[in-house]
């Protein structure tokens, strides 16, 4: 069966970046954090605690390959060889499968640490909405985890759920947020928790005459409800920051913000990098304690 090439609406932009102000040759310690998530993988390279380069791409079917590709992608625009890295931390869902990692650290710890770097030490509550899980993390001023709650069993409220919806409604994932606000009045949110049932509910809504934008709004609102209930259980203490890919979705975050009544902190960094940055910082701390693998 020759299947017509369907546009991949869920496909988000893969990016890499190099910091022009940092010269890796001057650095005492170069550390890397490789976050192999269920949907995306990031490699962050830090030189003495400054972000030098990163690569952010989609996770493939094979974790070691995804880790290698992400690191290669991060180094692509630099003149730094992979061997220059002093210490490498693997984190995320596929952390035990990062072949170049000297050590693995859980993604909870890395996200708290990374958020502390990205948003400053005032952050106390970190919400990470990833591809296949949601984590609500409470941390102290050093980025140390004090409490956390996690949903990794169910696609409701995760990035994967949003991808499924974007695909079904033929809307590019990057446009979901904006389009969900192009409506006359806010519709009732989708009531089904399960993404499978939410899909049939959305089909019903479309048949009832709701526009695609309204259905997107109804789903964004449902997602905000889901995320909020998790946050509520761990308790929200300001300052509050959101990491992960969903932080880029204005449709969900805008609605979540209204429910919490708290403005999330802003950062110049790509929100998907929190895990990788946290990993690289853990690596740096180990090197500074003299527990790195040495030059």
């Amino acid at each position: 069966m020759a299947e017509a090439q369907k546009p991949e609406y869920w496909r988000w932009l893969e990016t890499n970046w190099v910091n022009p102000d940092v010269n890796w040759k001057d650095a005492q310690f170069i550390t890397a954090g490789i976050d192999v998530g269920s949907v995306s993988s990031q490699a962050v390279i830090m030189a003495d605690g400054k972000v030098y380069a990163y690569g952010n791409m989609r996770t493939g079917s094979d974790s070691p390959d995804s880790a290698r590709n992400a690191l290669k992608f991060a180094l692509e625009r630099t003149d730094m060889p992979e061997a220059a890295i002093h210490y490498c931390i693997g984190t995320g869902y596929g952390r035990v499968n990062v072949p170049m990692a000297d050590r693995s650290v859980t993604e909870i710890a890395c996200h708290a640490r990374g958020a502390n770097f990205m948003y400053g030490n005032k952050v106390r509550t970190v919400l990470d909405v990833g591809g296949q899980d949601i984590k609500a993390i409470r941390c102290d001023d050093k980025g140390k985890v004090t409490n956390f709650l996690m949903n990794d069993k169910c696609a409701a409220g995760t990035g994967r759920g949003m991808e499924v919806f974007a695909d079904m409604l033929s809307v590019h994932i990057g446009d979901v947020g904006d389009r969900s606000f192009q409506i006359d009045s806010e519709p009732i949110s989708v009531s089904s928790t399960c993404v499978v049932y939410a899909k049939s509910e959305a089909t019903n809504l479309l048949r009832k005459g709701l526009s695609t934008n309204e259905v997107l709004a109804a789903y964004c609102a449902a997602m905000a409800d889901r995320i909020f209930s998790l946050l509520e259980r761990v308790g929200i203490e300001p300052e509050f920051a959101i990491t992960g890919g969903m932080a880029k979705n204005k449709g969900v975050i805008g609605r979540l913000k209204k429910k919490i009544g708290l403005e999330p902190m802003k950062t110049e960094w790509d929100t998907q990098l929190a895990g990788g940055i946290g990993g690289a910082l853990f690596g740096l701390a180990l090197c500074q304690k003299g527990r790195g693998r040495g030059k």
Partner: protein
Amino acid sequence: MTSSWRVRTEETQSVSVGKTTRPIQIRPRPEGGLHMITAGIDCGAKNTKTVILKDGKIIGRGSVLTGFDQAQAVKESLEMALKNAGVKQDQIERVGGTGSGAKSIKEADVTVNNIKAIAAAANYFFPNSRTVADVGAEEARAAKVNEKGNVVDFAINDKCAAGAGAFIEAMSRALETPLEELGPLALSSSNAIQLNAQCAIFAESEVVGLIHAKIAKKDISKAIHDAIASRIVSMIRRIGVHPDVVLFGGVAHNPGFVGALQRELGLEKVYIPELPEYAAATGAAAVAAQNGR
């Protein structure tokens, strides 16, 4: 008649539904009890089924896709069943309605919930049964039944596709294998691999990953059926497994699921009636024959 239901008379019977006990009134049985023609309509998430009972015997069945217009589906399935039974609508003395779309059954003289319907059906098909599970397209239920066919305890999953027929459907899409072939395929495997994901959405990606890892289709199929069976069994365990166990619902047609369920329950046999998807409708028809509105 304002609060007559509060008075516990011989005609009032207590039905325990979950944690609440709610008395329902039983009117004196019509002349002859079951000796009448009744219809039971089960308006489900996917299909609407009708069963015609005459003197306690099934004489006709009808099933149509529910689609978006539930009332229309109810009408069509009733017409189909009447035609199948060779009776006219005015010969039907009572109609019982059930299912997630029970509100759309205007023809119903008595409406019962799913749990009561499957309990009555379990009693109708297998009077010795004490545990009944019903696995439908979007819901799964289990009920503990006493010897009269009354509900003692129950559990429902209507929130998550991972514990309903929709799970196997989604997996058959991911595996690009027709639903009918998936069950027999599972029986041909003896390799135990496990699906880690619970969510149907995540399991879909996991199945694609297993295909890429060159795992045999039959082994993946077995893993799929084991996964859903373990979730159904954990639901049944919440109310306790008391033999004999009866299985209803369209998913009971799937030999892969039935095999996995028996294995998981540690039972030699679970009892399945002929055409298990009509069970709730049969239960509703039986209830209609027993009590009035």
